[in-house]
């Protein structure tokens, strides 16, 4: 085979401090407790940095700083002034894109090709997009004179650390809210780098506060009596806890949770592009995507042909060093996640589905899982029902469009779906019937700040992105 020599992106351009504090009121401060956590590079298990594990008192300080900033500065600032800060942040993100991409790949394990070409451009795009809305909120169609909610508590996952931060912070600030954000405990580094960007942009102190820690920190933040809004992206399990915790309070909440999306390929689809779309749908970001197309529903008449093409294509995927520009599949984010993927894959085999992976060398250190296909999957198998959140695709078949819709909707989730057909009328017919927040046609995993994103059923509620995303951060009173 025509072997590509390694083309690693240099990690010298990032400056990782050995230890990080909390970012509260525009300053780096030490945690009041002594608890510390470490973040590692999942591709090598090397410790990258130590960071503070915030406790309730730390969270309290952060919320107080956000409240003060909201009352004294940010909540009163005209939209056009807030927009300037957001534009400034967007531009700094663009200027520092290469550095941030390397940092993201180091901390998360995702290939640099994706952090560089997908994550970072989208992060900047979200800040630009919401900067544009900051002075036009009255024209968003959400009612006259919409007002900010106050302090937003935001808890984000480890799969797209910086992108999820942008999805949360950009609309919150554009609408005039202040923020306390907790990044995931396995991927805090880009959020901490973002704290520096806030300082570089001269954002008033307290408008953005970043507290690091684990589940207990998140709980303290969500439960804090002085937050007005909770935004969470992560597992359905944690989402349930949050929903319970905020029930009966005045807090507004948006939850963006798990998914088990169907990627439906009809016999008349553009086959080569469908194969690409299926690959992108499930193997993008090692399958650590809540809207991943983890169930392939293929029309029986082309099942063999499509599977053959898919296996051939999978054999060309390159797994390895996330910083290598030619890597397609990086490392699994954590040992815990790897264990979960292994457990579910073994369950798949036990239940009688047939497992297939291309032969690819697996690095000795780090957390790795090869791209995996399961054929002969039934709707009742665990691998067809539960979110695996890894590079594992379950293949099911169907015979008629109605059956495809039925099977696609037969899941507790409803975040996304994909339809592959050359027939336009069928795309519309399917999109009408699929119970999913996003339905992609002849493409998959495409994101745009102007497009709202969110789920049905156990995939959560509320929408992020687009004009709809503003509503989650505004108090709209009919006049």
């Amino acid at each position, binding site marked *: 085979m*025509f*072997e*590509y020599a390694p083309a690693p992106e240099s990690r010298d351009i990032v400056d990782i401090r050995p230890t990080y504090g909390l970012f509260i009121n525009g300053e780096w401060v030490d945690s009041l407790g002594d608890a510390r956590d470490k973040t590692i590079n999942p591709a090598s298990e090397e410790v990258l940095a130590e960071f503070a594990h915030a406790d309730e008192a730390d969270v309290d300080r952060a919320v107080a700083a956000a409240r003060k900033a909201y009352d004294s500065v940010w909540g009163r600032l005209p939209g056009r002034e807030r927009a300037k800060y957001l534009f400034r942040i967007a531009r700094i993100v663009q200027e520092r894109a290469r550095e941030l991409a390397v940092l993201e790949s180091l901390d998360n394990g995702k290939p640099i090709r994706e952090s560089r*070409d997908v994550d970072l451009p989208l992060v900047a795009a979200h800040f630009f997009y919401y900067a544009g809305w900051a002075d036009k909120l009255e024209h968003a169609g959400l009612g006259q004179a919409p007002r900010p909610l106050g302090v937003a508590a935001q808890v984000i996952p480890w799969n797209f650390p910086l992108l999820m931060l942008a999805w949360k912070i950009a609309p919150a600030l554009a609408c005039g809210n202040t923020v306390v954000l907790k990044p995931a405990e396995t991927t805090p580094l880009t959020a901490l780098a973002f704290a520096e960007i806030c300082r570089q942009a001269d954002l008033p102190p307290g408008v953005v506060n970043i507290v690091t820690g684990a589940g207990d920190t998140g709980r303290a933040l969500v439960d804090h009596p002085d937050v007005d809004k909770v935004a969470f992206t992560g597992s359905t399990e944690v989402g349930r806890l949050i929903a319970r915790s905020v029930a009966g309070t005045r807090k507004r909440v948006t939850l963006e949770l798990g998914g088990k999306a169907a990627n439906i390929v009809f016999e*008349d*689809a553009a086959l*080569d592009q469908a194969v690409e779309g299926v690959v992108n749908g499930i193997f993008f970001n090692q399958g650590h995507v809540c809207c991943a197309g983890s169930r392939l529903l293929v029309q029986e008449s082309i099942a063999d042909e499509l599977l053959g093409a898919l296996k051939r294509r999978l054999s060309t995927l390159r797994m390895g060093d996330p910083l290598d520009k030619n890597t397609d599949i990086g490392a699994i984010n954590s040992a815990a996640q790897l264990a979960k993927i292994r457990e579910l894959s073994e369950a798949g085999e036990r239940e009688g589905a047939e497992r297939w992976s291309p032969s690819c060398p697996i690095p000795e250190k780090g957390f790795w899982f090869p791209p995996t296909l399961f054929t002969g999957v039934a709707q009742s198998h665990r691998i067809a029902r539960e979110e695996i959140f890894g590079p594992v695709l379950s293949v099911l078949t169907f015979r008629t469009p109605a059956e495809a819709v039925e099977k696609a909707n037969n899941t507790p989730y409803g975040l996304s779906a994909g339809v592959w057909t*050359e027939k336009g009328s069928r795309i519309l017919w399917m999109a009408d019937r699929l119970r999913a927040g996003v339905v992609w046609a002849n*493409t998959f995993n495409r994101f745009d700040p102007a497009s709202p994103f969110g789920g049905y059923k156990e995939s959560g509620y509320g929408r992020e992105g687009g004009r709809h995303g503003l509503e989650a951060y505004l108090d709209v009173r009919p006049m």
Partner: protein
Amino acid sequence: MTTSFTEVAASNATLRAFLHGLPGVDRVGADQRAAMLGTRSIKTTAKARAIDLAISMVDLTTLEGADTPGKVRAMCAKAVHPDPGDPSVPKVAAVCVYPDLVGRAVEALGDSGVRVASVATGFPSGRTSLEVKVRDTELAVAAGADEIDMVIDRGAFLSGDYRKVFDEIVAVKAACARDAAAGKGDAHLKVILETGELATYDNVRRASWLAMIAGADFVKTSTGKVSPAATLPVTLVMLEAVRDFRDRAGRMVGVKPAGGIRTTKDAVKYLVLVNETAGEDWLTPEWFRLGASSLLNDLLMQRGKMATGRYSGPDYFTLD
């Protein structure tokens, strides 16, 4: 031609049914895939190998009304020794000339192993009768051409007269035959689809299959006289077609993008495309060619850069 394809070619209706039954090509998806493969980063040893491979795949081409025997002789010298100062540079795959200059090229190349390709069949428009096309081909073959680059009748193709296109390819393929006693095998037939005039990727896929069913040894994107000439996505679609055709018919067909490939960076992108679409079997001059006239000097310049760490100026490479 296998039995099943005999049935496919039985009438225009069966041909049409077959070609329109092929999976469609989604333009957006194909463009994205080609763009993604274009971002592969090729460095050091891999790049050095890629440059030599690309040089050995070049069809050094001159197709101008002003071509002279002298110009062809000079080009042939360059084809054999692309860089007179560096004998480690491989020779190119072929030189490509008009039929009337084939004899000169054969003479100049001698037993160097560089093949002679000739564009026949009323190149570049192909708007002439079948008799003329066949005769054009026969003359080039008789003069010693190893490869014939024919153009398809785009007018017939676009009007849906697939059978006419098919028949012409079959007739020209027959004209490529040589008496076994002559010592040289049959000339290889490269079928130029002129993808810039076919407009859609669906048409590119159909035309590729049509040419392969009719017996083409190679499918080639362009004459170089129409814009756009070769593009990465069009070549991607053609590579998918030859890959699928081998699965179905058990026969390999080569691919040649031609026109507009000027830089080493471009050439390497094509090699990546071949590697990840059709596979490494196609990564030889026997099954993949780059039709280009100005590409070779850039490849040589990059090769020099890899060896010495410095760029030399264009004057350090010959213009022939």
